């Protein structure tokens, strides 16, 4: 985050949020309800079905996982945010130094682009419905573009989203705010219509793994996925930037609005869409069906509008944030240039269905890479003094690069990604061990490296 941004946006990016700028609880409840009812929810529910989750896994797994996510926001993120009142970036800069924040920004910006790309893909499945057979919709197994019409559709959507993000996302944020209650009801309507078409409201009977197939996700998989699909935001501390405006840490409970509406009701309703297509239309659950045609079949044009708006309102701020992250790395480029770069990467990513169609894996990898850095902030905030390590190391030593943070972050992430590749471990199981390992390593390395630095300095005297 640049100094320029602070002056222009007056978002207190390099100062604690003052008392006069604090917000009441309703701002947080509304924001979380809106932000976590996105176009990608139309993918995640059906993907659970494709992976063979049962009704028990979904109903109770999501209940527990979302509860754990809310507790993480409430007792980690909101607590630290309301005491420090700083953004993640500035707080990290005080601990790790400016250069390491740039590296974090690079990963953050790229992963934001891929996430926004997944939303472009989902939106394209809705925009493509009127084109009929001239566009081949991607299935869950597709990784590459499905044809020229598909590419043109994605490029057009990506260009439109980038254009709006460049203009500033005020208008889109306003549409997102207005859409939130309507979007949730469209998700609910999809679920109710599907129950009507299936002729049963018995979820236990309706949602079960197809016969003779092995389930790729069980109860604990659903728990860990729903807990860590936003790992970068809660245990990764990205939402310090949001909760620094909260008057009290108990506003952290507002995350429940996003979790239990967007990540519970909406996911289960979206899951029912694929259940219907598998049972009544003979769709192959492993290949799935693109969200656009399923939603069109369920609730018609209103559903297609919902898919586009849900994707658009979440992708735009994501492109905007990615642009700011790139601008943080190259402070000389303008915000517009940063946003255009982010938009280009996002649009290209959107053309490839791999990110959206393998969203469960992608979201897990996203959390595995970004969330461990949050452990450094937790250690610095709660444990540094007790364990005898320097608080806000970079600020105190005027260092631009804290090697202890880099190693503590890179080693567990590299190990986690290797385990994912070598042993095919679902990546949503990895953020927690990586986060814990990062915290432990940071303590050990800080003690070790700081002692050797003090020793070197003493010898030099």
């Amino acid at each position, binding site marked *: 985050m640049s100094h320029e941004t602070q002056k222009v946006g007056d978002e207190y990016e390099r100062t604690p949020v003052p008392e006069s700028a604090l917000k009441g609880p309703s701002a947080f409840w*509304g924001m979380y309800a809106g932000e976590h009812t996105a176009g990608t929810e139309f993918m995640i529910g059906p993907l659970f079905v494709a992976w063979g989750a049962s009704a028990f896994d979904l109903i109770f797994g999501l209940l527990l996982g979302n509860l754990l996510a809310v507790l993480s926001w409430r007792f980690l993120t909101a607590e630290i945010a309301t005491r420090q009142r700083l953004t993640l970036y500035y707080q990290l800069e005080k601990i790790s130094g400016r250069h390491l924040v740039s590296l974090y920004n690079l990963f953050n910006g790229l992963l934001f682009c891929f996430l926004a790309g997944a939303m472009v893909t989902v939106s394209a499945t809705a925009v493509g419905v009127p084109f009929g057979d001239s566009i081949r919709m991607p299935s869950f197994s597709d990784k590459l573009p499905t044809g020229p019409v598909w590419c043109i559709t994605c490029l057009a959507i990506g260009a439109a989203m980038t254009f709006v993000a460049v203009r500033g996302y005020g208008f889109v944020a*306003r549409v997102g*705010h*207005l859409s939130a*209650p*309507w979007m949730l*009801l*469209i998700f*609910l*309507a*999809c679920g*109710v*219509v599907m*129950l*009507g078409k299936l002729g049963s409201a018995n979820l236990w009977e309706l949602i079960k793994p197809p016969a003779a197939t092995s389930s790729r996700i069980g109860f604990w998989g659903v728990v860990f996925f729903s807990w860590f699909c936003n790992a970068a935001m809660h245990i990764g501390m990205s939402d310090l930037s949001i909760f620094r405006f909260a008057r009290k840490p108990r506003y952290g409970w507002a995350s429940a609005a996003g979790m239990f509406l967007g990540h519970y009701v909406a996911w289960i309703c979206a899951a029912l869409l694929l259940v219907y297509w598998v049972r009544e239309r003979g769709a192959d659950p492993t290949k799935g069906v693109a969200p656009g045609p399923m939603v069109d079949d369920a*609730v*018609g*044009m*209103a*559903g297609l*509008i*919902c898919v586009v708006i849900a994707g658009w309102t979440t992708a735009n701020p994501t492109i905007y944030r990615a642009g700011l992250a790139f601008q943080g790395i190259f402070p000389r480029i303008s915000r517009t240039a940063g946003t255009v770069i982010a938009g280009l990467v996002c649009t290209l990513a959107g053309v490839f269905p791999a990110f959206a169609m393998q969203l469960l894996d992608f979201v897990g990898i996203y959390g595995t890479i970004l969330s461990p850095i949050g452990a450094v902030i937790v250690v610095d905030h709660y444990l540094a003094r007790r364990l005898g390590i320097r608080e806000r190391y970079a600020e105190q030593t005027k260092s631009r690069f804290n090697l202890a943070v880099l190693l503590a972050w890179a080693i567990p992430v590299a190990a986690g990604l290797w385990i994912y590749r070598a042993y095919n471990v679902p990546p949503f199981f990895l953020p927690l061990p990586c986060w814990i390992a990062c915290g432990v390593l940071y303590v050990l390395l800080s003690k070790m490296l700081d002692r050797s630095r003090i020793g070197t300095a003493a010898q030099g005297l």
Partner: protein
Amino acid sequence: MKTISRIVAPLALAGTIIPAVLFAFKLIGAGPMKLTLLLATVAWFATAPFWLEGGDR
């Protein structure tokens, strides 16, 4: 406009879910259900900015 919105916007929200329930109980067909949802969507976006506090910010 604000008074009209206070009446129409909640009705539009109701119009987004009630037709789906009626369809599930086989009281209306798919066509009327989808059409009502679309009209409710248009009505919601036309009136919600005036109804929702802070919606125009």
